């Protein structure tokens, strides 16, 4: 039984279908379909060079299965038939010839190759309400793209929180709109910005109806992103900071990776762009095995909490992941609100896929950024971890708690390495307390030593002894 038979078995109202194959060796597929479902009429079209005589074809179900050599032989049946099935290993592009028949349901199997099931889905989604395409791969498990919806559905919402970004907005929007898909929306949330960001957005919105503007009172980045989520309709949600820019293919690649196999999170890598010098620096990240082939094990997904940089704008999240787990941005946090969001989403996700490309450009060295904070602003980490202690540690999953502990440690070391010396003592005291709340000393020491190495383990000892000088010295 495969996914195709599974669907037909569920939907007994389907009693006729067209099956397109490109290889007579697969003719047994026709008989399997009839045996496993309640289809009474199956019209098989096999358009290939070698055609055996009709008498040689398997005739288990003579009146049920009818054989044709090309689509021209059965135009009325194709026009009336609402279900098209296919099994195309050599020439998957052949299915595109059937777009003209506007099937309501499209189910099939292809071999991994130049044409992806995503491409087929994009073309057929204007007509179909159910699409299921399995991609057989040589080097990994097969993946299934399953989609239910209509052509007016929004598949992806991109949320951009705006505050004083007018200088960089044109560059950002230009890179976003180059991808011409009609099933995305770009939601710009004006967080009470005093500059003319909203006028720029409205100007672009005149030519592109995917661009939407929300005005709200200033409440901080977290509240802007949260407002964006609440107003969005997409099945996947992405975030972009409007002072950055992207490779125009980024969301196409992320959505494709996520849809083929139904992953809850899809992510790629990012580059740092230094605004003052114009230099690009690739931010190398954990995009390889096992994530690039698609990871189905929540225990491996959890590890990304501490093995992958915090950067939610190179990720897209399935809406159901966020809603079913009540994940939201903590609006009391003035900055770094993406850290708890990242931890909570990866803690709750089961399936994740990495696209091994660096497609987001993170602008740095521009005046006024939080990322260069070296003072009291860093103390927001403790508020963040107070929230995470409740949401993550309350799941009582020791593996997850250990991931959180490693994340906390890495965050506090990062903060101590850049914080102003007069604040270091106060920070390290709180950091000690924070780490003690999620794990005893010896266990954490062994954890850090095994996962992050001996040098980091020594830093942990230094931290617990209150020795911030050691941490600052050994970067």
């Amino acid at each position, binding site marked *: *039984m*495969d*996914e195709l*038979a*599974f669907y037909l*078995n*569920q939907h*007994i109202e389907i009693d006729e279908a067209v099956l397109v194959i490109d290889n007579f060796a697969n003719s047994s597929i026709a008989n399997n379909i009839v*045996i*496993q*479902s*309640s289809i009474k009429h199956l019209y098989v079209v096999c358009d290939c060079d070698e055609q055996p005589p009709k008498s040689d074809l398997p005739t288990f179900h003579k009146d049920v299965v009818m054989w044709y050599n090309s689509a021209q032989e059965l135009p009325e049946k194709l026009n009336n038939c609402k279900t098209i099935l296919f099994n195309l290993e050599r020439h998957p592009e052949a299915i595109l010839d059937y777009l003209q028949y506007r099937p309501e349901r499209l189910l099939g199997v292809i071999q991994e190759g130049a044409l992806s099931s995503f491409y087929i889905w994009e073309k057929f989604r204007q007509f179909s309400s159910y699409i*299921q395409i*399995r991609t057989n791969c040589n080097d990994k*498990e*097969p*993946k*299934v*793209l*399953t989609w239910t919806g209509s052509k007016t559905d929004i598949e992806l919402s991109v949320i951009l929180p705006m505050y004083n970004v007018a200088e960089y907005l044109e560059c950002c929007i230009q890179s976003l709109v180059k991808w011409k898909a009609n099933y995305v929306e770009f939601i710009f949330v004006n967080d009470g910005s005093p500059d003319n960001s909203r006028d720029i957005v409205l100007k672009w919105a005149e030519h592109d109806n995917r661009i939407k503007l929300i005005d709200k009172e200033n409440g901080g980045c977290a509240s802007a992103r949260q407002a964006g989520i609440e107003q969005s309709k997409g099945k996947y949600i992405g975030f972009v900071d409007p002072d950055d820019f992207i490779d125009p293919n980024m969301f196409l690649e992320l959505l494709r990776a996520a849809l083929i*196999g*139904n992953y809850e999170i899809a992510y790629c890598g990012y580059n740092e762009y230094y605004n003052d010098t114009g230099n690009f620096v690739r931010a190398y990240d954990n995009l390889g095995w096992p994530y690039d082939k698609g990871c*189905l094990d929540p225990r491996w997904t959890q590890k990304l909490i501490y093995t992958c940089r915090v950067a939610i704008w190179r990720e897209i999240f399935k809406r159901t992941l966020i809603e*079913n787990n009540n994940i939201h941005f903590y609006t009391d946090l003035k900055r770094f609100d993406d850290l708890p969001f990242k931890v909570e989403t990866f803690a709750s996700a*089961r*399936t994740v896929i990495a696209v091994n490309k660096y497609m987001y450009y993170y602008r740095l060295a521009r005046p006024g950024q939080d990322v260069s904070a070296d003072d009291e602003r860093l103390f927001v980490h403790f508020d963040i971890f107070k929230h995470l202690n409740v949401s993550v540690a309350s*799941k*009582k*999953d*020791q*593996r997850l*708690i*250990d991931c959180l502990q490693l994340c906390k440690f890495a965050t506090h070391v990062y903060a101590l390495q850049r914080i102003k010396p007069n604040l270091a003592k106060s920070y390290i005291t709180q950091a000690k307390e924070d780490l003690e709340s999620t794990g005893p000393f010896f*266990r954490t020491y*062994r*954890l850090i030593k*095994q996962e992050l190495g001996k040098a980091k383990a020594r830093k942990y000892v230094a931290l617990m002894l209150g020795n911030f000088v050691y941490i600052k010295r050994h970067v």
Partner: protein
Amino acid sequence: MMNELITIIVPAYNVEKYIRQCIDSLVFQSLSNHKVILVNDGSTDNTPSICEEYAAKYPSLIQYISQENRGLGAARNVGIAHVNTPYLTFLDSDDFQDIHFVEIVTGYIEKLDVTPDIVFTMPSIYDQATGRVVEWYDKADATSLFKYDEEAFAPRFVSVLENPWVYSLEPNANRRILSTEFVKRINFSFPEGVKWEDIEPHFYSLHMANNLGALFTTGFYYRINSGSQITAGTGVTRMDMLSVLDAVISRATLDNWPDIEGAFIVRLAIKYLNWCIDVINNDYRDAFMTGTRALIQKVPKSYFAAYFNTCSPHKRTEKLMLKIIKSPFYKMYGDYRFRERLTHIINRLRK
């Protein structure tokens, strides 16, 4: 005189999302030679009204019974009491049946001269997270056990006396068809008020059966990763595993089961205990380890000896596991990092 061959018992608790699909798959079977008993186990959502709707629409096919919430085992037992067809089977209300099931089962049974006590079917697993349909967990083992040859219609009956490896099949109740006469003869019933209620009947019924058949061309669809499963629980439901395994071991020792059958009880116990220890959450881990220790100490030494001689998949690791659990340091075994270090050390020793 009932003409129908098989009754499908469907216990339902708060499954308004899936129950229609489940009952539809039973109503629209390709051959109508069956009965359905829906048991509403004190649902608080729309499940009862949906069940009543179907029972009113198909009165000769569906019987509807309602009770206050007593659990899966009790619901199935109530269903058994109302069966008057020669065979019965079960279906969980969030799964659904292959539409050719009754037709294929009828075709199989009517050609047999000896009535099988139990017939094993072959379900498929639908993973809602990935959209894939994959093979049932023990498909390879089951196929080789019954040497099922689809070409020749010659079902090979097996019994545990002949091959105790039958015990290693999945205990799942929904993939078995039971002969009603056999069920009544041996007083087959599910334990009530506990989770993992199919483990004890699995051992008892296989021990008492003479003829086990196999029918691998059909089986239900088992939905996983929908977010509502019992097997996903990490808390107090896991503790029931201890009392269930205790009941199995007690019966085996009281009734003097041969050591080779005890070996397979140990095999399942170790596998499931490891599984529970792996997923149980921080609140219950220590209590579970204490319970495991008590349980291990109840198992006769001859069962362990037979287990390590015949069907232990990882002798060294498991012997070490048992030593640790019997020692005062048993709680350490509950820590996943300790277990990982253990496997690491053992693999290094192997080289």
